[in-house]
């Protein structure tokens, strides 16, 4: 089951060129294991969506990938096999670098191997087509051998997966609530049973009962089909319950990465700690919420050293001068980028 399915290394993404560039994603190293639910959290503007777009090569201009690799290793007998062999060539043991795929390969790759539910995807449904025809269109395009009846049946099944009664198949997007549209997009992403599903804030418009239901479906499908999920959200409380591992981004970088329960029990990075303590509790006494003081960094005028230092309650000497690297921090394969947890503090930069 395990072993990496996606390995991101040294990934950098800018918006714009030269001096005007906004460095939205920096030096990202991240591995997604097969069958894993990886949560990606961090405040608004930290680069989560940019990372997702870069991985799927859907980065809108003026976004440019300025460096790095995104290696994809499909499983033997996994969806890549089922879905045909457009990607087989050159996928030996090493897999393919998504950043080097040609347009033809990319087309086959998206939806079949990896699907992305955009943030705000509720608006990407075509307003003049019914839910049924949008769901079946995906199947027509990628599963031409399916009969019409089978496609309709599959469309109904996909809808029920996300908790929408089948009598809404004939509805048009404007006739659905925001959360319902969001769920139709999730259903579409699952239609071809891809190897990796990237969900960017997929549940922001959903009530908790529905969120839980959809996440449980994902967990179940993950077990049945063995796919991997990258779940992007700023709602870390949700991630704590449902993901295996969590990576936390700040100012375009990953600042901490560990098993969900390790993050909850013992967040090492002061920013992670702040995130965990800034959501309102439903239970227990009402406490004053402090949040994280200060405001998110301006990517155009990034603070020197650790980008969090102007807001960090624990900042020490090297913090404002040198960028801490993401380094191993204790058992359980966890990593953290913080001078408080870096052993070779005296090393030069």
């Amino acid at each position, binding site marked *: 089951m395990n072993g990496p399915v996606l390995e991101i290394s040294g990934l950098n993404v800018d918006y714009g060129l030269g001096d005007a560039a906004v460095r939205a994603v920096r030096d990202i190293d991240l591995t997604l294991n097969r069958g894993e639910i990886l949560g990606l959290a961090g405040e608004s503007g930290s680069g989560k969506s940019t990372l997702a777009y870069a991985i799927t090569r859907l980065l809108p201009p003026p976004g440019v990938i300025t460096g790095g690799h995104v290696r994809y290793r499909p499983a033997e007998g996994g969806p890549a096999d089922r879905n045909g062999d457009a990607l087989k060539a050159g996928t030996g043991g090493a897999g393919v670098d998504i950043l080097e795929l040609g347009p033809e390969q990319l087309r086959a790759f998206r939806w079949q191997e990896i699907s992305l539910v955009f943030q705000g995807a509720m608006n990407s449904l075509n307003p003049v087509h019914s839910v049924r025809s949008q769901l079946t269109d995906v199947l027509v395009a990628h599963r031409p051998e399916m009969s019409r009846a089978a496609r309709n049946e599959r469309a109904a099944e996909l809808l029920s997966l996300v908790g929408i*009664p089948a009598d809404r198949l004939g509805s048009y997007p404007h006739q659905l609530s*925001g959360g319902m549209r969001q769920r139709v997009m999730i259903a579409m992403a699952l239609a071809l049973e891809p190897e990796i599903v990237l969900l960017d804030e997929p549940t922001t418009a959903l009530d*908790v009962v529905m969120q839980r239901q959809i996440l449980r479906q994902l967990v179940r499908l993950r077990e049945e089909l063995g796919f991997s999920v990258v779940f992007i959200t700023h709602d870390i409380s949700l991630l704590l319950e449902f993901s295996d591992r969590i990576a936390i981004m700040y100012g375009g970088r990953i600042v901490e990465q560990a098993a969900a329960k390790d993050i909850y029990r013992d967040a090492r990075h002061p920013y992670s700690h702040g995130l965990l303590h800034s959501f309102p509790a439903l*239970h227990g006494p009402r406490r004053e919420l402090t949040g994280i003081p200060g405001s998110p960094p301006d990517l155009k005028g990034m603070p020197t050293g650790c980008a969090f230092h102007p807001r960090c309650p624990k900042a020490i000497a090297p913090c404002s001068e040198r960028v801490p690297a993401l380094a191993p921090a204790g058992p359980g394969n966890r990593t953290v980028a913080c001078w408080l947890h870096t052993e070779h503090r005296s090393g030069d930069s």
Partner: protein
Amino acid sequence: MSPSAADPPAAGAEVVLEARAITKHFRVRRSLRVLAGGQRPVVHAVDDVSLRLRRGTVTAIVGESGSGKSTIARLLAQLYPTTSGELLLDGKTTRAKGGRAFRAYCRNVQMIFQDPFGSLNPVHTVRYHLTRALRIHGRGGRNQEELEQALTELLGRVHLTPAGRYLDVFPHELSGGQRQRVAIARAMAADPRVLLADEPVSMLDVSIRLGILNLLRDLKERLQLAILYITHDIASARYFADETMVMYAGRLVEGGASETVTQRPAHPYTQLLIASAPDPDRIAEGVAVTAAPPADPDAALPAALTGGVGDAHAVAEHEAAVVAEAEADSASPGEPPSLIDPPPGCRFHPRCPKAMERCRSELPPRFAIGDDQWAACWLYDGNPLAPEPDAEPARTGPARTGPEADAEPAAGTTGARAASTTSTGGEGTA
């Protein structure tokens, strides 16, 4: 007007906007007629909703996705007409669409839309959006300098600083959260008396979310705004709203003081909603949601909830149990009802672990629970009927007797609360 029994704490404050039994049915395509049994099919998006928005008060509506929350907001903003029912601004009925009265209504009642991606025009800059909004409402200042100052202040209010970095960018250059803050700034430009905020912060991360909610609260207090806060984040309703109402399948099913509704939910749907909220303590305490429920789901409860002392572990365990119970006991666990052909009686009955015979056919009216809460649920039959905001008697009539009612624990407020939480006694959990 004297505050009535089931009114929330802020009952004394002046009512700015009131809805009386508003209903919205949407027509759907003919081909669905078969499903609806020959009748012209409609989506029952909102049925018989009565509520009051008061000066300087935040009223939250929480509830299931697709239950009609946005539709209520749009009806209140008069973006489309009601199928039936009445809207009153400052006690006066508003009818005619168009004309001066309508324009005044629109100025007074501003809406923040659920979704910032669709509500900003991609071809215009932030400066354009905000300048236009300020000018429409006559707040653009007399010269460029004043306009610039108003713009800077607006952006500052939503924490987009320095303003210079954001004024001349296009919506696509902003992150999702940044875009939503621009949308909020635009609504604030009108300087409204009623703010209808449809999920205003669901796209924002927690730290900014807090800032925006505090900002809205500050506006409420300073400008005495009446705010309708629609959210699916019930924890934020607890912190931010004075009053919270719960919606299920087109109807309001529970309402009252936010602290009471969130800490002692009465309606079984509200209980499910509260129990489903992400709660990291569950993983911390090793109570996995997916794990089998404890043998007696209710055993943990009295100590946790009625004992007054918050025992996180017991609460977490109980909630895992409530969720598991709701999933195990009902035929189709998470399945929300069809609104084209809604279930008769109580619309929650197909999913309700406490459903009784009468729930399948009789629509429950609002029953009072204590002095600051009500629920539309037959479990509270025997309690006094909660006055509807429009003060008309509930149309279904108070069917106060029935075999199930007798099986309930002692009537009265505390009895009713016990009935809601310690459940199984009497009606059984079929």
